């Protein structure tokens, strides 16, 4: 079975780990050799570092684990002054000086300014090695979740030595989830064994898992080489494996269906978000707002500015950016309405012309102010990562939050339109301007505010976009068409149409994509839209009754 450099090293370390953790041998590590190994790390090549890490682990020194985890977390530094190696407590960019810890005694050693410290770097192989090594330490951690992670880590590189440890743990493991995981591992290992009874048992265990690795491992036994020889000779075991694969697949199909729906919703929610603002400026006010995309861009840049203003507080800055973006884009919208659009009511096609001009100007302004390069917007840590539902379905958090965000924004908008005075005015003006005027609605003001509201929402969309795509001068361009599609598909003037339209477009797209590829999927969605409009010329939720008959 596959044995790279890594596995060998891992094997060696494992022995060390065993020694370290079997309570009978309370091995006393020798501080001197330990610290010499440490100082050797200073300017070793990556390959040497791997060897040194090996030595450290074998040394069985009590602070080995602390050092290794510091190394993998980029917290192991050398003080330039005396080229002493230290563990840094926290590498917070915000701090001017970092607190030092002695790697041998793990006792505090005051602090040093950042620029007097140089990091001991790692690369992929080293990190991988460190993780597997540490995992073996953590197998014995009191915290079950840590143990679970550790087992998962160990499973990535199974070898006889690892299996030995797992065997030892499986008996004593109290936590069921960890136990399952270990059994999975043992099962996978057992498959390679010779005792067919054990292998059948293993298959029986594995058949209850959903994890892809397991499935592929079993499926691999069923493959037959070019000359028709099965990878697995024993027909009985093959049958068992085949059955196992089938049952796993059955469970997985459910998950993958859910996955597609989720992906679809997340794509759709973005469409909805970019469409909603337009549903106001274009749908309600009839302004063909070509600058809509650039208003989103403003929102995205607001996030960037917020983050540069308060480095180190990413999460907070994003939260502050939400209202800020609304205000920035909203104000821009109001200015735009007062200075240009209000002269163009009754001439919507000219609003297209003017707003297109505005969009050009906004783009170039951003280029002049922030340069043509994309800007780096960081994602708060709590937004990256996944929500693991079962073995097979993982929901990516940032997409999940964006769906949430979209729904919230949409709900708030509905409340504004349906429950507030402003909303009432907006609808009144949209319905019948003259009448509204007669009833004392200050239509001018309402126009400005309506447009501001729509633009503000575009700003909010920008905040969301900044979390998963480029923040650059072209941000707007890449979404403007989609937004118009969504609004028209949903039916101009209908918010619900925008919601339903956007979501369904997203889901359809994601259902098609695996089969026909991204481009054809998009094309088919567009064609579907065209056909749909042929059949229902006023979109999903058309305005009914006499009002709709325009002549």
């Amino acid at each position, binding site marked *: 079975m596959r044995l790279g450099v890594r596995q060998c090293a891992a094997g060696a370390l494992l022995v060390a780990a065993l020694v370290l953790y079997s309570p009978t041998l309370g091995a006393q590590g020798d501080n001197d050799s330990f610290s010499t190994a440490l100082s050797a790390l200073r300017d070793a090549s990556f390959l040497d570092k791997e060897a040194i890490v090996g030595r450290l682990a074998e040394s069985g020194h009590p602070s080995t684990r602390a050092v290794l985890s510091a190394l993998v977390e980029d917290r192991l530094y050398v003080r330039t002054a005396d080229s002493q190696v230290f563990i840094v407590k926290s590498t917070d960019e915000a701090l001017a000086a970092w607190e030092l810890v002695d790697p041998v005694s793990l006792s505090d050693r005051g602090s040093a300014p950042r620029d007097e410290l140089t990091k001991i770097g790692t690369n992929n192989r080293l990190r991988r090695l460190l993780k597997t090594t540490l995992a073996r330490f953590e197998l014995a951690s009191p915290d079950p979740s840590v143990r679970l992670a550790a087992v998962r880590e160990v499973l990535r590189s199974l070898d006889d030595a690892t299996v030995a440890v797992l065997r030892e743990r499986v008996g004593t493991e109290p936590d069921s989830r960890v136990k399952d995981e270990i059994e999975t591992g043992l099962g996978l290992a057992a498959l390679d064994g010779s005792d067919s009874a054990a292998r059948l048992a293993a298959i029986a265990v594995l058949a209850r898992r959903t994890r892809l690795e397991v499935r592929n491992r079993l499926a691999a036994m069923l493959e037959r080489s070019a000359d028709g020889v099965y990878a697995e000779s024993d027909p009985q075991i093959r049958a068992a494996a085949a059955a196992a694969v089938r049952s796993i697949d059955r469970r997985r199909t459910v998950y993958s269906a859910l996955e597609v729906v989720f992906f679809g919703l997340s794509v759709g929610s973005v469409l909805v978000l970019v469409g909603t603002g337009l549903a106001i400026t274009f749908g309600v*006010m*009839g302004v*063909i707002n*070509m600058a809509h995309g650039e208003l989103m861009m403003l929102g995205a840049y607001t996030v960037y500015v917020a983050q540069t203003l308060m480095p180190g507080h990413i999460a907070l800055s994003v939260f502050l950016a939400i209202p800020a973006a609304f205000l920035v884009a909203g104000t821009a919208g109001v200015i735009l309405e007062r200075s*240009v659009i209000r*002269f*163009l*009511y*009754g*001439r*919507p*096609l*000219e*609003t*297209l*012309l*003017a707003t*297109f*001009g*505005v*969009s*050009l*100007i906004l*783009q*170039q302004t951003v280029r*002049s102010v922030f340069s043509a390069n994309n800007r780096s917007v960081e994602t708060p840590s709590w937004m990256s990562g996944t929500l693991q539902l079962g073995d097979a379905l993982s929901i990516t958090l940032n997409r999940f939050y964006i769906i949430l965000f979209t729904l919230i924004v949409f709900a708030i908008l509905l409340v504004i339109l349906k429950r507030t005075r402003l909303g009432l005015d907006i609808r009144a*003006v*949209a*319905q*019948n*301007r*003259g009448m509204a005027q007669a009833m004392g609605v200050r239509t001018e003001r309402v126009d400005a505010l309506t447009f501001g509201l729509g633009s503000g929402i575009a700003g909010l969309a920008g905040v969301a976009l900044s979390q998963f795509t480029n923040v650059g001068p072209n941000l707007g*361009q890449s979404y403007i*068409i989609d937004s*118009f*599609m969504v609004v*028209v598909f949903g039916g*101009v*003037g209908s918010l619900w149409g925008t919601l339903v339209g956007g979501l369904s477009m997203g889901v359809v797209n994601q259902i098609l994509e695996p089969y026909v590829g991204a*481009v*054809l999927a*998009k*094309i088919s969605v*567009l*064609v579907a*839209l*065209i056909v749909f*409009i*042929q*059949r229902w*010329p*006023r*979109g999903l939720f058309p*305005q009914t009754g*006499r*009002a*709709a*008959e*325009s*002549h």
Partner: protein
Amino acid sequence: MPFGRPLLPAMRQDRGGAVLLAGLVALSVLVPLLNLAVPPGSPWHLSTYWLTLLGKYLCFGMLALALDLIWGYAGILSLGHAAFFSLGGYAMGMYLMRQIGTRGVYGDPVLPDFMVFLNWHSLPWFWTGFNHFWFALPMMALAPGGLAFVFGWFAFRSRVTGVYLSIITQALSYALMLAFFRNDMGFGGNNGFTDFKDILGWDLHADRTRVALFVVTAVALAVSYLVCRAVVDSRAGRVLRAIRDAESRVRFLGYRVESYKLWVFVGSSVIAGLAGALYVPQVGIINPSEFAPINSIEAVIWVAVGGRGTLIGAVAGAVLVNYAKTYFTGALPEVWLYALGALFIGVTLFLPRGFMGLVPGTARLIPADGPRGAGRPIRSELGVSAEGKAK
């Protein structure tokens, strides 16, 4: 001239047209002279750079003309005309690619280079025939025309109007753009067609050929102008304007509105296609970004800047805006977008009828605001509701 046409405007219109035609004639005489006869040294020499540029402007002029015919007179705002333009261009491009023959970098007698290094083994079926000009030429009109017919037949029959129509035309050209970007389509993907050698046996890089192409373009523009003029001056033209102003009223007069819209749409798309076909050999490349919706929008803007519903205004606008673009991208590369943006805003705010609005008398010919005339509810024009922002 049909009877009963108001005479004074007729005079005016003809004067405008006369100016345009005279200009085109002058160009097609002067340009060859200045480019070929005058020695490169002299200040009067017209460089190939300007020659190509003028040729390009005229092509865009044709595109604008086509757009004005349906937008200015029938009130159909197409945001997909770039698609027809590009289809014409691709038809010409396919012909030019086949003309390269063994002079391609791989020296393959049949396959264009991009097919060779993506190791295709034979020409896709839809390439057959394009090595003959007599086949390619009609395709330059039929490809866009056919698409327009199918699309229009459905759209107008099901009475898709206003912004809904605009957006699905946009969707159409967007979809086509994505499709042509795919290398599997057999149209050279993102790189499209380029490095053309010659057309009808004449070397495309020789000034003589370029001059010839320019003159052909000028003539094509003149002819398409006369055709459009004839259409809008016929009773059909008046019906179209009537449709623009009050569509359902025209139905009650017993006209089959959809067929009027359809045919003028097809005609317009054919003109656009031919413009594209003439554009490609002059600029020397055609690739999918020509389909980009933004291009359609720009074309609409040329018409608006010039003044819609006047035909000459459209041509003037196209030339004006594109000259501005050429000039600014060269002179103020850092800030030219400001200038262009300002131009668009300025025109909409101060010249609602475009620059033609400044020409005394023509203003009256131009629909005041939007296809349904001044003060009509904004949203009804969007095809949404009769109520709304009525004054």
